[in-house]
């Protein structure tokens, strides 16, 4: 949340969601990030999306690595368990948690340094496993918390605050995720809550790894002229050809959907992801098309945003591992321990 004290008593009664909760239930403690930091806007979008989806706070598990971005899980849904782990290692921790308890809703917050340098190995393998989670990279092109070094997403030619240009080619998380077979790939901009909220909702409902690369300017170290991750630069270069709407299962689909929707994707829980606008002939279910689209845009120095790719049918970690529907954490000791008689039988092989 932005660094403004919350009023103790709401000025007007706040609206409530399907669970009877107000948006306050989805907020967390006060942000300690710099005023104007893109990460705070992303937090606000998460609060809004989770509130509107009426997610039960106790079912949410929010995890992160280390960095300014990774601090943000404290700033939303205070009624959810949180885990601020170590630098770059959030994906394995979510992997284990999800393996053990598949009934929680997992959201992982990471930074560009966290995901694409120190934790790159984990990031790519979480994609391979199609771990069912929302994976947010709050991408500012720098290491915020260690004060402004270039990160692996810094574009060639993008200048540091002191004016030095980066010369090492960047890793684009979107292209990387697409090439690795990610089942949900989106990009957004922290300055565009209207776009980010529906993307987040679809990401939550997607069964599998939902990667959202959110460009999130660092006002302290990377928001100057010459930076390609500044508010100004992103606004100038955003390519917004993809528009999507998330329609919850409660909405009567046929009646409410515009005839103009180009592509509708039925999500796992019965909700619908409707694409209102798409580049000519673009199908967000066609991975190769997405890869070429993103590559062409990069060449033209454009930053395409929106849900670029979705595959609702991909097998997730649990499908691949064949785990039971019952979360493993709910299995009783008696179901797990074969007991003394079986031990005697088993040892026959060792005689």
């Amino acid at each position, binding site marked *: 949340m932005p660094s403004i004290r919350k009023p103790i008593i709401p000025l007007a009664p706040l609206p409530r969601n399907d669970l009877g909760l107000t948006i306050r239930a989805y907020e967390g403690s006060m942000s300690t990030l710099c005023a104007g930091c893109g990460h705070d806007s992303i937090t606000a979008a998460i609060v809004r999306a989770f509130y509107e989806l009426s997610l039960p*706070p*106790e*079912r949410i*598990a929010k*995890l992160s690595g280390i960095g300014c971005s990774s601090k943000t*899980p*404290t700033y939303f849904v*205070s*009624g*959810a*368990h*949180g*885990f*601020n*782990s*170590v630098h770059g*290692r959030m*994906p*394995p*921790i*979510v*992997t*284990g*948690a*999800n*393996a*053990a*308890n598949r*009934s*929680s809703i997992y959201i992982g917050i990471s930074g560009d340094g966290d995901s694409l340098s120190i934790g790159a*190995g*984990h990031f*790519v*393998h979480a994609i391979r496993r199609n771990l069912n989670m929302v994976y947010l990279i709050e991408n500012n092109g720098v290491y915020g918390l260690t004060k402004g070094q270039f990160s692996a997403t810094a574009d060639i030619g993008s200048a540091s605050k002191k004016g030095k240009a980066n010369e090492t080619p960047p890793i684009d998380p979107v292209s990387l995720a697409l090439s690795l077979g990610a089942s949900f790939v989106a990009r957004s901009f922290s300055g565009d809550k209207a776009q980010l909220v529906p993307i987040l909702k679809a990401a939550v409902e997607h069964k599998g790894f939902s990667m959202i690369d959110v460009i999130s300017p660092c006002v302290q170290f990377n928001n100057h002229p010459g930076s390609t991750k500044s508010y100004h630069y992103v606004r100038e270069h955003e390519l917004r050809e993809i528009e999507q709407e998330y329609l919850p299962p409660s909405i009567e689909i046929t009646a409410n959907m515009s005839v103009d929707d180009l592509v509708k994707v039925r999500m796992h829980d019965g909700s619908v992801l409707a694409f209102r606008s798409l580049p000519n002939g673009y199908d967000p279910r066609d991975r190769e098309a997405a890869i070429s689209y993103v590559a062409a845009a990069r060449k033209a120095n454009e930053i395409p945003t929106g849900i670029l790719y979705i595959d609702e049918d991909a097998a997730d970690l649990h499908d691949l*591992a*064949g*785990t*039971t*529907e*019952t*979360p*493993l*954490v709910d*299995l009783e*000791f008696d*179901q*797990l*321990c*074969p*007991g*003394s008689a*079986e*031990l005697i039988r*088993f*040892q026959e092989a*060792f*005689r």
Partner: protein
Amino acid sequence: MTVLNRQSKGELKNPKVNNFAMRFANVNGTGSASANNLILKAIFRMGVPVSGKNLFPSNIQGLPTWYEIRVNENGHTARAAEFDLVIAMNGQTYVEDVQTLKEGGYLLFDSSWQLPPEATRQDVMPIGIPLSALCTNPFPEPRERVLLRNIAYAGAVSALIDLDQDIVSTLLDETFSRNPKLRSSNRLALQIGYEYAKENFDCPLPIHLETSNGNAGKIMVDGNTLTALGALYAGATVAAWYPITPATSVAENFLKLCERYRTVEFTDADGENETRNNFAVLQAEDEMAALGMVLGASWAGARAFTSTSGPGISLMNEIIGLAYYSEIPAVIIDVQRTGPSTGMPTRVQQADLLTCAYASHGDTKHLLLFPADPHECFTLTAKAFDLADHFQTPVIVLSDLDIGMNDWVVPELVWDDNYRWDRGRILSSKELAELPKFLRYSDPDADFVTSRTLPGKDSKGAFFTRGSGHDSQGGYTEQPEAYQAVVDRLAQKHQAASHMMPEPVIRLGEGSPFGIITLGSCEAAVLEAIEELEGDGFGIDYLRVRGFPFQKSIEDFIQNHECCIVVEQNRDAQLRSLLLLELGIDPTLLKSVLSYGGFPINSDFVVDGIREILKG
């Protein structure tokens, strides 16, 4: 440090019934393991105490590999120092293999080729068997012949040492129950070797077997299998691992066990029956990920573990610290091998002690368990889960390659069906409801443990797990007092754990001023050494450490002796250092005998080391 010269034990005392050692020199990847295992298992079934040590290279095919079998009626089955019978099947190592024979020992070799002159010894008995030539006609296919030539020497050995042929035959039936073709070719190869030996040599040799009853109530098995079984019985549902010798078979066995005991029938939406798994075995991208997965699973409320060896422990260090400081249970199995770095991956050492005791940066201390054999791999692995849950901390089980990968004869396992796991202080919804407010790191119990909650259950129990500075309420802090209160409690918690660690094994004689302190796989060699010293009229007391933090009984043992000799398998006397550091005792009270060349320790080495110390 002592300089150790091993004295020769002199003449062979013939006949040596149920008391001899054999060494099989093979080429890696030629299938010799099945021949050697057949002999080992047959001896075991004859009721004679036996051990098998596989001294293998870090290689898939082509390099020399040895298998050693020691038969000892008295149950002394540590590695032998010299051999009565050498089966020299590897031309590359003939010369050195012949040197491992005792005076008057027997050398079995393939006489299809000539033995190089430098590989002959006047003081040993050659037993030349033209194994290759004998196998040429019956097994025309070259690959098959290589494999069956090994079975043929097993046949010859079984005649020479008088292996019970009925047992051998039953074992063949069991091994090849599903492959009659292989059964008959193996049977033929065995017979070829057996008959040749019978016709051409005086069988049995003076060193031979007689049926005994030394293995009643015993099983023969490797440690990694029983480590996996311990995790299964303890109710672990998540295992995460990255392949590494010699730990790989822990996770692979756990998966096999789960597939056998943890699958359930499930009817899917289309009414089709499927099997589903009450477990998840995750092959991670590296060891940091493996331990991260364990932490995630454990945080979510499952029992979870990882298995690795030294290099993996090094990689896990950062996350071990996270588990320690944020108080998340984790069980880590370290099957130790020879370090540092890649070291000798297929050789043994006990050299991860210090790195495990204090793994990770900052002030950290962990709970360690030291199994001495496969039986204890089972009991202590199961215990590790209770300790981890109870104390909300990582527990490292320090097995090693010798225990983990070799077959040992150990007492059979028993399980108490009344046992229930100790999940530690996890608040139920009801307990949570009764609290005014949940504060993660406050209200410690007598063991300095605070209560935790699991995600996914209750909003009131929500808290933030973090590896950054936190106070006793779980909040972020950079305040000295608030920070110290938590880390001080962690130190107290570690100390408190000593009352739940397995007690040391202690054997006291008649007031000897000397004691031996050891751990893990040294036990067999040390006990044999003690017996030998006693035979010479020199009594010495014995203590085997089984866990860290150390109990008072260990300190007392040291204080009650003039001098204790710490026997361990590393260069730097790590157990001795840990004892000195943690118990604050006078360093002159502890001396060292150290074996660290990579092969399992033998009793002669211990005896010589002790004699040397006592001389000085």
